[in-house]
């Protein structure tokens, strides 16, 4: 299978650099899959999980918001964060999710609500990557 070069950068580190057969991640308009020889695009990236396939092996990570640039079989992500599924503390993510959900109920302020929504999205992405459920 033809592979492509994948780079994931965050403000703290160069989180991943290597080859991949295929990846699946979320844009604000839904999930998309990328394989080699994709047409050139620049897309916004939503906070969610990213799945990698390489030599039949699969790995999952949680990534933050950002952009993804695809040119000539090079896929570059610039996102606020990235954590491999095995690095995530599912219990903590669940707590964060519940905290944000609780605050959503209590607060009416528009800015606060947007912040809570962002916290919930982050916690959810991490939970999904860690393989846990919400309930």
């Amino acid at each position, binding site marked *: 299978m033809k592979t492509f070069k994948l780079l994931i*950068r*965050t*403000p*703290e*580190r*160069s989180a991943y650099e290597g080859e991949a057969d295929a990846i699946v991640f979320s*844009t*604000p*308009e839904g999930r998309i899959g990328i394989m080699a020889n994709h*047409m*050139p*695009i*620049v*897309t*916004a*990236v939503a906070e969610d999980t990213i799945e990698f396939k390489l030599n039949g092996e699969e790995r999952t990570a949680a990534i933050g*918001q*950002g*952009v993804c*640039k695809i*040119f000539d079989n090079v896929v*570059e992500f*610039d996102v*606020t964060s990235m954590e491999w599924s095995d690095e995530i503390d599912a219990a903590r993510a669940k707590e964060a999710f519940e905290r944000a959900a609780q605050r959503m109920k209590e607060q009416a302020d528009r*800015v606060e609500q947007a912040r809570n929504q962002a916290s919930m999205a982050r916690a959810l992405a991490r939970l999904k990557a860690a393989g846990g459920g919400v309930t």
Partner: protein
Amino acid sequence: MSMNNTGEIKARMKSIRQTVQIANAQKLIAASRIGKAQKMLADAKPYHENIRQTIAELLALHPEVLTPFVGAGWTTSLKPGFLVLSSDTGLAGGYNSNLVKYAEQELTSMEHKPVTVLVQGHLGRDNLNKKGLPVDMTQELRAGTPTLHDAGVIAKKVMSLFEEQEVDGFGIVYTKYHSAARLEPVHEKIFPLPPETFGNAGIVRSDVTFEPSPEAVMEMLIPKYIKGFIYGCLIHAWTSELASRVSAMDSAIRNGREMLGKLTQAYNRARQAAITQEITEIVAGANALVE
């Protein structure tokens, strides 16, 4: 202080020795943190550079895509807001006073006076407030090891002031770290940014599409760019503070050692004088007995 009493001199030497020890520890801690801070700056660079490059490419293909944060120049700012980065901890030589002096001079000489000033670190906050600048004392931005989270909180705050039209632009005053010997207080613009800020995009492929739309990508990128810019400034200010502390502690150590040298001499002299006096007294007493 009298230099004749050996006990007094000894006590003073002990306290100076302790001060030198503290200064030495402070210096070592600050020096080791400088390395860490510079690594943080280097780690953040590829990400930030790429965000900047992507914005440049987007603007090259879609120059019509502007956001309120990218557009008119600084000169049109009629009610600017300012962010000043000082520190919470002293023992850093002239770091805070130089910054406060510079900030006061810059902010009071502007044609359109700042309407609000956010200050990180209570040393700068208290001083600038005393100078009559419109410092927002309710915003207690903590100084210290910079984190992305801090940068995010500040970025959100300044962007929301802009969106609520409290200000029509934001500037920043902080100390730029060029080298240990060259720390320079500077005044830069956070936004609105002229499109040239993002530099030359180089050769851009015209067949690229932006998903879901160029506007949406721009909207995603600009807050990241602003946060990244502020993060860089926080690290510069932090490194400058540490470098000031290292050199301040260096001179404190030097002064302390010099003083210890002088006191050792004074101590020996006083001790000798006391012995001489005692011998004189004994001899005089013995002579009196003989007579």
